[in-house]
């Protein structure tokens, strides 16, 4: 940020003797507070798994493990089958992401560039679902998945119970359509004269130009499916096929899990998302900021 743009407190005030002292104090206090509030719980989770169950429950607590039990992570992975649930979750997230992209890109492309009769009605109907709180549709959506109308199939305990409802994502359609709208039609027309079909136009011209929008949609699709809880809780009741979130909740209520194994499970469930955040921090936070400014 340049020196020209100022905020609430001016540079001059911050540089003056007392202003500088106050600035240092506030900055230090906030840094300590943020570390304690947001980073320390995660530190506690990761190191808690390394302690013995007794040490983890002891008062006063130990800040650093007295004796090391890194094998707890292996125990959790095997005995609690955290590994299996992690693979389930990753499979649901990646498959869901792929299906969302295919379905929503095609729909947004049709609505933006092919503009069929009644296209605006369809778009309105899709965007109206943004107004529907997910919670209010929970029960009828569950019944629909248990017996899909027309097809009469039962999707419970299959990946499709997550993937197909997930593809009905109005946010994706909105973001993608707005982006496609900005691609000049002339560009497509001139390629069309060369004999490129609708699909080739989408694949060779529209998609390569839409990388930023595809990135935003992809990242939020993956994060969303990793964080989802209530819907997988309802439609994946068979322990074999559960996501890591649902499995952790179930394991926690059985009471047959030691606290350090539970901590290991929580840490393992978090690691993929922490990595995603570290790698895509800029896209995630900027995507959020852009959303805030547009409303």
């Amino acid at each position, binding site marked *: *940020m340049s020196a*020209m743009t100022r*905020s*609430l*407190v*001016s540079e001059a005030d*911050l540089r003056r003797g007392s202003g500088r002292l106050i*600035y240092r104090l506030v900055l230090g206090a*906030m*840094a300590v507070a943020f570390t304690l*509030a*947001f*980073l320390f*719980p995660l530190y506690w*989770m990761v190191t*808690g798994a390394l302690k013995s169950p007794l040490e*983890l*429950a*002891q008062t*006063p607590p130990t800040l650093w493990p007295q004796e090391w039990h890194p094998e707890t992570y292996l125990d959790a992975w095997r005995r609690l089958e955290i590994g299996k649930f992690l693979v389930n979750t990753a499979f649901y997230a990646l498959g869901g992401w792929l299906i969302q992209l295919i*379905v929503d890109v*095609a*729909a947004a*492309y049709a609505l933006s560039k*092919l503009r*069929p009769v009644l296209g605006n009605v369809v778009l309105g109907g*899709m965007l109206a679902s*943004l107004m*529907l*709180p997910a*919670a209010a*549709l*929970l*029960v*009828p959506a569950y*019944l*629909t998945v248990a017996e*899909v109308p027309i097809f009469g199939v039962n999707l419970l305990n299959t990946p499709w119970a997550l993937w197909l*409802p997930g*593809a009905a994502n109005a946010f994706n359609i909105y973001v993608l359509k707005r982006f496609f709208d900005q691609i000049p039609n002339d560009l497509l027309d001139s390629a*069309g*004269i060369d*004999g490129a079909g609708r699909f080739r136009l989408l694949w060779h011209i529209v998609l390569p130009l839409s990388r930023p929008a595809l990135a935003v949609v992809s990242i939020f699709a993956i*994060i969303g499916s990793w964080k989802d809880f209530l819907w997988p809780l*309802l439609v994946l009741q068979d322990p074999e096929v559960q996501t890591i*979130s649902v499995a*952790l909740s179930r394991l*926690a209520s059985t009471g047959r899990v030691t*606290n350090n194994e*539970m901590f290991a499970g*929580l840490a393992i469930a*978090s690691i993929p998302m*922490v990595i995603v*955040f570290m790698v895509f*921090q800029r896209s995630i*936070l900027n995507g959020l*900021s852009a*959303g*805030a400014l547009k*409303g």
Partner: protein
Amino acid sequence: MTVIAPEQAASTARGSGGRDVAPAGPGPARMARLRRKIGDNLQAYAFLAAGLLCFGLFSWWPLVKGIVLSFQQDNFVTDPIWVGFDNYRAVLDDPLFGTAWLNTLEFTGLALLFGFAVPFVMALVINEFRHAKGFFRFAVYLPVMLPPIVSVLLWQYFYDPGTGLFNAVLSGVGLPTSDWTQSPKMAMISLVLVSTWANMGGATIMYLAGLAGIPGELYEAAELDGASIWQRVRHVTIPQMRFIMLVLLLLQIVATMQVFIEPYQLTGTTNEETITVMVLIYRYAFTVNNDFGLAAAMSVLLFIVLGAFSAVYLRLTRKAD
């Protein structure tokens, strides 16, 4: 650039016929145009088909089904029976109905108190920092990335009255301890604290984006007029941020009124102190009553309340567009 094959040239001419050729063309041309138009539409709907199917089956149909179901009694073996407003009457007569709504309002109110004001103040302070802004943005948003069940289960250990970290720290510095989720008085506040911790990063980041957009001249002018820091916040920052604050307020109300995972995991679905509307719907459908009609009726009521907030939100944001 490219040599256009004759049949391609012909097809493009027909393709743009709507614009170029006079409407009262000869018969065959008009037919060709019509055929072309139908072909285009069929192609467009082929691209739309998967999306229409997904929205139709899993968004639009459940909406209709939910409303129909709220007027039916259905055991899924014999044909459903129409029962008029019986489900609504039963739901309204349920002593838990009032409890659940009051608890939900209490949760939403407390969540706004913490989750609305605290991120604003934090963003206001962080925005003044000339150092380490990236660290603050990273730290505050980190919990938002965690699966919600991780936050909730982690805090469940922190809250443990006997072995939890919170009581250990409190008694360590000589403060009174608490039973947290197991105390009727503190249960709801405990749920709000986890929820706020896990979610306030989003609001903070959005406030920071809004604050960065306030023109510096406004502060400059206010300062020249002798406005103190507090007066600048009151007369420059808050008016400039009014729109984004309102939007976040509405979003937060809609989100917190659907609270489920915190009471489900921390206090259980049978604890009357913390039964929320969503927990009650879950009980009606899946645990206590196994009655989807009751659950559907309650869902419709929740939908009406939340729909009102969503409508206001959409009106606001569309006006801004």
